[in-house]
């Protein structure tokens, strides 16, 4: 175990993205290591104290009138699991995403990297501090503990993590990678977790994951909530759909709904799960029950039960990339655009299919932050509006989830409906599955961590 000087390093924020100035104070290469059961938790805490003292002294020299403030309002455990990665660690990215999260939610961060290759010693730890650097005033710093374990030490992890949690503060566990429900291996840890974050976009098989999640929900502790970042990416879509029906006259059309058309593109099959969640959400909120699910050439067609059946179509269409804002102009007989960063391509809710009824449509834009909405009712001419959304990085998505406590019942309802779609369709089940490694690269290892999830 070594202690060395504190290095404050200013890093440039991404251009065009609002981020506070970040400074990384690290006791460079400060490493605590041991055998599979011999990482000294007390030593980590002692080293953290030393780190803070050293940081304060370094800062005193640099900016003598401003204090260093250590802040913490939660515990964030980040588990990166890369069993098939041939030993490549996802840690550097996960740690930096977590560092961005703490700028909005000061946390003690524990990054736990479970590696496929063997380590010597099999369990290792290091610590660092991440500071926000305001132009003036106090420097706000959060601490990060990095644990690396190989397979032989994995079962010892809960015993190391639990004593490192700051008591009395909420515990969030963010699982990065496929097999989120492998977390059950850490049942000892799960007992202390308030919120379990995962990303179904990284799942090899969302259908299976959905089923496992639905199985787990009724059995979980009341205080444990499940959050899916893939669902969080749908928030702007849900917002835009909801916005149509804030107006009273538009709301009156909802009971007359006849069809819902959701478009996704086949080159990104994971998006089918997102589309299934979106369809599930609309069904759930309108109390619609799927009666039949039929595979079609485009994708799947779902008919709902009841007197007024609503037809849902989740359509997968190939097509060359093109400006999505031209989508409607090229609609007849042509494939829609495929903005690279957009997941669900469009959603339309219509009361009639013959052009005389009302229709409410959202089409994703091509610049990650824009969309077009179209609204046509009997009372008004076609109204087209361009909508801009905040770009939501992975860090932003996680941060947003940290801002809310408790269960997301709407998500649970949407998930149950998505499971019904999977249950009725062979095609839905097959196209929802996708090799995870490609997605992990896309979502986590993106050099800027912008996550390509602006509108997704």
């Amino acid at each position, binding site marked *: 175990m070594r202690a060395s000087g504190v290095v404050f390093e200013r890093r440039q924020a991404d251009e065009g993205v609002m981020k506070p100035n970040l400074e990384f104070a690290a006791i460079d290469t400060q490493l605590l290591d041991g055998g599979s059961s011999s990482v000294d938790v007390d030593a980590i805490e002692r080293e953290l104290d030393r780190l803070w003292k050293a940081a304060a002294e370094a800062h005193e020299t640099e900016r003598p009138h401003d204090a260093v403030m250590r802040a913490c309002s939660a515990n964030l455990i980040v588990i990166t699991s890369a069993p098939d990665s041939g030993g490549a660690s996802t840690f550097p990215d996960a740690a930096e995403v977590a560092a961005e999260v703490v700028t909005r*939610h000061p946390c003690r961060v524990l990054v736990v990297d479970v590696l496929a290759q063997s380590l010597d010693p099999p369990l290792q730890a290091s610590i660092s501090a991440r500071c926000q650097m305001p132009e003036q005033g106090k420097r706000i710093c959060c601490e990060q503990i990095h644990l690396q374990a190989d397979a032989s030490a994995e079962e010892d992890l809960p015993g190391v993590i639990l004593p490192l949690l700051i008591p009395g503060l909420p515990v969030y566990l963010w699982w990065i990678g496929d097999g989120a429900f492998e977390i059950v291996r850490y049942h000892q840890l799960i007992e202390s977790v308030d919120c379990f974050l995962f990303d179904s976009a990284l799942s090899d098989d969302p259908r299976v994951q959905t089923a496992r999640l639905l199985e787990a929900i009724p059995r979980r502790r009341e205080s444990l909530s499940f959050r899916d970042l893939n669902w969080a990416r749908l928030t702007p879509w849900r917002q835009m759909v*909801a916005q149509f029906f804030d*107006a009273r006259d538009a709301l009156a059309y*909802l*009971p007359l709904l006849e069809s819902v058309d959701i478009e996704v593109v086949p080159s990104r099959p994971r998006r089918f799960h997102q589309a299934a969640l979106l369809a599930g959400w609309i069904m759930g909120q309108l109390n619609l029950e799927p009666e039949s699910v039929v595979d079609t050439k485009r994708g799947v067609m779902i008919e709902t039960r009841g007197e007024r059946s609503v037809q849902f179509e989740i359509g997968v269409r190939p097509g060359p990339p093109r400006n999505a804002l031209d989508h409607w102009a090229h609609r007849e007989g042509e494939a829609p655009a495929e903005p690279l960063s957009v997941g669900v391509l469009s959603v339309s809710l219509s009361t009639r299919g013959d052009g005389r009824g009302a229709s409410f449509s959202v089409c994703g834009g091509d610049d990650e932050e824009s969309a077009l909405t179209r609204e046509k009712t009997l009372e008004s001419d076609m*109204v087209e509006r*361009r909508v801009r959304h905040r770009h939501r990085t992975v860090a932003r998505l996680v941060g947003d989830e940290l801002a809310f406590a408790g269960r997301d019942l*709407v998500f649970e309802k949407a998930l149950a409906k998505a499971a019904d779609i999977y249950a009725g369709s062979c095609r839905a089940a097959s196209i929802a599955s996708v090799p995870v490694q490609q997605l992990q690269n896309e979502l986590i290892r993106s050099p800027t961590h912008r996550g390509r999830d602006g509108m997704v």
Partner: protein
Amino acid sequence: MKATLSANPFREGLRIERTPSPCTMIIFGATGDLTARKLIPALYNLVLERLLPPGFSVVGFARSGKSNEQFRSELRDSVEKYSRTQPLQKAIWDSFAEGVFYHQADYADPDGYAALSKLLHRIDCERGASSNRLFYMATPPAAYQEIIGQLGATGLAAPGACPTGSAGNRCGEWARVIVEKPFGKDLASAKALNQSLLSVLKEEQVYRIDHYLGKETVQNILVFRFGNGIFEPVWNRRYIDHVQITAGESVGVEGRGGYYDQSGALRDMVQNHILQLLALVAMEPPSSMDANAVRDERVKVFRALRPIGGSQSESFTVRGRYGPGSLSGTRVAGYSEDTGVDHESTTESFVALKLFIDNWRWADVPIYVRTGKRLPKRITEISIQFSCPPLLLFGEAGESMSPNTLTMRIQPDEGISLRFEAKLPGQTTRLRSVNMDFRYSTSFGAQPPEAYERLLLDCMLGDSTLFTRGDEAESAWEFVDGIRCGWDQHPPQDFPNYAAGTWGPESARRLLAEDAREWRRL
């Protein structure tokens, strides 16, 4: 599916700040300081946060002639200068500026309003602004009644208005008017203004703005009191010795002498900001967070304020005016040297009051407030001083005990701290006061929005909780008029009575000293 829906089912559980329905904001007095410094930067930041609706448009209404392009360019400059977020993001600004228009007209010219109506209709068609209107009175108060009358005459302010020739366009669902302070200069003028507003509008269309209520920390007062179980049981006369509210400004009248000299600290600060802070600290729990439920409780506090009038003003109030002095090492001039100040005037730049709320919770608990210009620092805080323990157990060590104090810092360095006694480490028992601190800046990384951002958004969403209701404004004026009346009978003889850069006149210290108390050192 039900045959009819009373609420939008897609709003359930949508964990995103709600954006309002499409609308157009019409700013009267669009070339003024308020528009440049506060309104446009606030709108820009709302755009940046993606909180404004699609199709949102702004029409600046003012007398001077300029083109849309000139107006947009001036507004861009003001955002670059005054926005809390920097640097300006060009793409965001450009998309916002596409929806900004300028309309030149005289406030009293009916043709100007007819032309405005046409412009709004065009904007509705081109941008899908849905005929919802937010009118912002950023003019001098003297113009309010004229503008309101004209809006009434042209039907522009009618909720659900369908503009002429609107076939094929959805009629607006709402029209709202934001009225800037000062809302009158006394009870009579406030009543007249209310009457004038309500002859054209319904009360629920009127949003009287007090930007203090939009401050994050002010809103937190209710969360702190009613979102925690441990404070409310001791929030009463049984445990609280007294309350202090301080709103200090280090600036002077800064060239606004002409306006300020007609107003003074009592009207400019106490009638609105200070009394609103007091109401939030003293109010009973509302039955819900519905706007009227909250405002009902605030107005009850004003009605329970023990009137101060006539000769009582000598014992319960202190007024002051600053003379020359020194602030932060710089010599500064006295109040009467500012341009626009009438040398015969007796306008106060400092007020201290001892108030009582005659209700079950607060009977006989003094509430001391002070506010003034050219005080040593800019600071606003509320301090709740609790009663001392009934018995001093620690001998001599206990004699130096300080009472527990809960301080809510409104600005700057927003937060809450609780002072309590602790044992100094050592073999003997010695006590020392320590602070338990909560700081917004350290607990939440995000920069809080400006008050105007929150208030503009609330108005667009139809939430009037943080706006002053008509009866609230009148009750506050009624209380303040009593003090004013007493002062008028006894004009001040000792102005200026405090030096710039000090905490006010000596009589302010005495106001508390007579009760064996003292102001908090800030």
